[in-house]
């Protein structure tokens, strides 16, 4: 997958953010987003215990005790705060994080997400994925439309283990933006030169066209 496509996804998701929102960014594509939040006062929450996460510091300011949830050195913005893991997940589970942007393995057409385990493979990591799925006010999925070998990720039904009963609110891929409403999936934007027929072919999930606002970018 090209870095350009990943950046397109990051950029599009950044447009969703509103001033003063608390945002939690997962691993993968979501980590690209901070570069594209321009002119918006949002605050990045990191589940290892930081609100107000800033960019990667210069080498001389690196401190392995100031890192992101991806375990990379970060800095703190003005007005940042530090707290322990139980308070950090109090924020997540208690609905105090406005938007979580998560990568995924699969999403089904109701918005149920599978983003932690592949059947038949070793399942040795879940991290904060299930807490974010259960607790964030709005969940946006950032994902390539299909996996590297072309296997669809947006499905009628999950075949991988679910991350929770809570449904996601939006999916952004390199080709399209989908919204969920009452467990139904709507195509609201096309982001590439793909035709609607081609999109349908790589998207087993059933979705409706949101005629009011379908945008081709």
């Amino acid at each position, binding site marked *: 997958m090209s870095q350009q496509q990943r950046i397109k996804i990051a950029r599009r998701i950044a447009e969703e953010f509103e001033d003063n929102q608390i945002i939690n960014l997962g691993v993968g594509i979501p980590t690209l987003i901070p570069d594209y939040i321009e002119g918006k006062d949002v605050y990045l929450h990191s589940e290892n215990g930081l609100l107000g996460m800033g960019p990667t510091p210069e080498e001389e300011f690196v401190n392995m005790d100031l890192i992101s949830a991806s375990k990379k050195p970060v800095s703190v913005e003005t007005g940042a705060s530090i707290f322990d*893991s139980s308070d950090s997940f109090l924020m997540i589970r208690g609905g105090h994080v406005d938007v979580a942007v998560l990568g995924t393995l699969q999403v089904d057409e109701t918005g149920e997400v599978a983003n932690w385990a592949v059947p038949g493979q070793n399942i040795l990591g879940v*991290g904060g994925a*299930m*807490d974010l799925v259960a607790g964030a006010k709005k969940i946006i999925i950032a994902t390539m439309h299909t996996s590297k070998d072309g296997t669809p990720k947006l499905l009628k039904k999950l075949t991988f283990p679910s991350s929770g009963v809570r449904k996601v609110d939006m999916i952004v891929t390199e080709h399209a933006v989908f919204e969920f409403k009452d467990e139904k999936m709507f195509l609201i934007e096309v982001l590439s030169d793909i035709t609607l027929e081609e999109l349908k072919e790589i998207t087993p999930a059933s979705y409706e066209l949101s005629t009011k606002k379908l945008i081709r970018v």
Partner: protein
Amino acid sequence: MKKLLKLEHFSELIKDGDKLLVGGFGLSGTPLSLIDEIATSGKKNLTVVSNNLGEKGKGLGKLLVSGNLKKAIGSYFTTNGDAVNAWSKGELEIELVPQGTLAEAIRCGGAGIGGFYTKTAVGTKLAEGKHQMTFDDGDYILEKAIKGDVALIKALKADTLGNLIYDQTGRNFNPVMATAAKLVIAEVDEIVEAGEIKPEEIVTPHLFVDYVVVTKYVKEGGRYVEPATTN
């Protein structure tokens, strides 16, 4: 200072089969010196509760190499190849717990709470066999408190009473783990006089801390490194 413990005496406090709560997020906020002592202690059948098992050959990863572990309870082991291998070969039991549930279960262990109901993991494999209850806004599962025999935590500073403060996100699981074990040992960079840390700024009050050990590591370029031996 009554609570000061020499590093070389630390591993006497650990018994075969103990359940250890070990602070840290990856290698950040991790009691590296205490872990090194365990790695050379020959202790067996330990259960470690920690978010990760460090990295391959580093931090808690050393205990995999030295064969001290029976079981690991935590949220994310995928990035440590040794953990994955040991588990595949049946040499290591792993209990996977969502990160927020892990933090809260440990806090409950320290707080005299038997268990708590969370929405996290409802409807997933990790909820299998767990008691479920419906509250006003939906279904929750019961997660039971986690307690340890010994907690090994890492702080930035202790005062002479044992009050602790932490360095930035090195705080992570350390304060909750400090509440939830029969014996709590804090590895610190520095010991200051009681009174130097203001009452409002103390994160872990001394009543939770049994012993304080000064780290053998030094921080260079923002990373803890083993000091050159001086002999």
